[in-house]
């Protein structure tokens, strides 16, 4: 179910507790999955079986594709891995700024 997403959209995994929010997305159709199953807007009534990568997601981490054309924030961690068009995306290294407030 590929579709065009906009920043701020939240997607939930259908196989684990993972929830992500789009921070930066290209304006083209994307197929976003977690643990091998398409992610959806809103939490599912019940979880399905994991069928893909299950390295897990960590709350608060940013995930990006290799070319850094998009960025997602994990707002709730879970057991599945997130993939775009079938390719698993990774944690983006944090840039440390001094505390300013």
């Amino acid at each position, binding site marked *: 179910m590929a579709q065009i997403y906009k920043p701020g959209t939240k997607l939930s995994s259908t196989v684990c507790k993972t929830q992500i929010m789009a921070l930066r997305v290209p304006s083209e159709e994307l197929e976003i999955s977690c643990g091998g199953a398409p992610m959806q807007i809103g939490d599912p009534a019940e979880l399905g079986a994991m069928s893909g990568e299950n390295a897990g997601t960590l709350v608060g981490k940013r995930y990006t594709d290799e070319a850094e054309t998009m960025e997602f924030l994990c*707002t709730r961690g879970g057991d599945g891995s997130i993939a775009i068009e079938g390719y698993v995306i990774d944690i983006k290294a944090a840039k440390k*700024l001094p505390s*300013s407030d």
Partner: protein
Amino acid sequence: MNIHLILQMASEAMGYREALICGDTRLTFEQLGEMAKSVAGQLSGGEKLAYLAEADPAFPAALFGAALAGTQFVPLNYRLSEEQLDAQLKRIVPAKLITEKSISVEGIQCVSQGNILAGEPSQGEAPDEDGAVAIELFTSGTTGEPKSAILRHANLMAYIFGTVEFMSAEEDEAALLTVPPYHIAGIAAVLSSTYAGRRMVQLPNFTPESWIALAQKENVTNAFLVPTMLQRIVDHAGDNLDLPALRNIAYGGGKMPRSTIEAAMRLLPHVNFTNAYGLTETSATICMLGPEDHREAFASDDAAVRRRLGSAGKPIPSIELLIRSEEGVTCGAEEVGLVWVRGDQVSGEYKGLGSQLDSEGWFPTKDRGFVDAQGYLFIDGRADDVIVRGGENISPGEIEDVLRGHGAIKDVAAVAVADTEWGEAVGVAIVCHHMVEDDELCALIRANLRSSRVPSVIKRMDELPYSETGKLLRRIIRDGIAD
């Protein structure tokens, strides 16, 4: 987006951590999350939530609770006169007002700090409406009627995502919060501390004694101060300030005198200092001068490096910055002009006046300044404060810097005074350590700057007027000299 997500993530991922300390009250992030739900449960009719009190646990609960209910949070200045306050309240109706004061304005429903937290918790999700407004914040209005700045959820979230990593604070970290709720730095501190998982220690009434005592008692690691607060702490401490737990001091909200930051660095050599430059309209910090820059400048014999102690630093990665002349031409290094910024955290919008951004998204800060060859920003002051003498623009800052170098001068402000020949001329208000002749000060300026900078009036004062949040009140000085 919705700023409530910050608290939701904190209470889900680190709900057990201590979130807030105020007097004898101690709350975890989970408890703060429940308090915000209670606040949201009382906001059903789409009314705004205003806050007229010093910082206490109801402040963060109200900030996040209003967001959860999908309405705007409007913190108000409790130092305003009754008349000024009435005028602001009439501009935000209908609203619930958290206050202990008795206020009667049509469309304003008062509720105490205790009662706003006593309701049935909201079970709903925070709404995610495109372009929704999170906060309305009245600017200080030093030059006229206070403007109401609009900060959208997306602006504030962009600031947080651009500057803070989630749960990046160590479990022992504690931030001492002294800036009031109606100041952008007071709001930014709650959002960043919550996202980082750093416990917040509230100090509603700043005095140097109470700040030092609380920092010692709660093993405070981080603090934000406006320059006058840091100066008062330095003055009070003398040669010895015993704060072994303290690691980071950020400062901003006004011009930091070189002598103050140098004294503070000598007094607290183990502490990292960061200058944070930002405006209400930019959702807080847009430039930073970090700890390494401070140390390098402090130790350097090179005047160009050493003067960076007075710099606002470099733009943060998510912000672009330009200096433009009055005519809109981009300035080169060292060339003074107007500071323009661009980025997702920049709202640049006032209620009733609309967006102030140009067609390419640049916001005019109305601050004057320049960037050096290495990209460090130096702020010269507000464009409105420039003295125009016979068509020549004179920056108060250059005169103040020269006079501050004189041993007799404790504090100084240069302002415009009416002049029959030149339209405006330079007036100077000084606070002295000891007696000094006018002629001597005039000669000092003539020797360092052009003769047009020599003041036509010098007024001696016991102290200069500052707002509670450390802004020099130039209008009062101008009026005082005019009399």
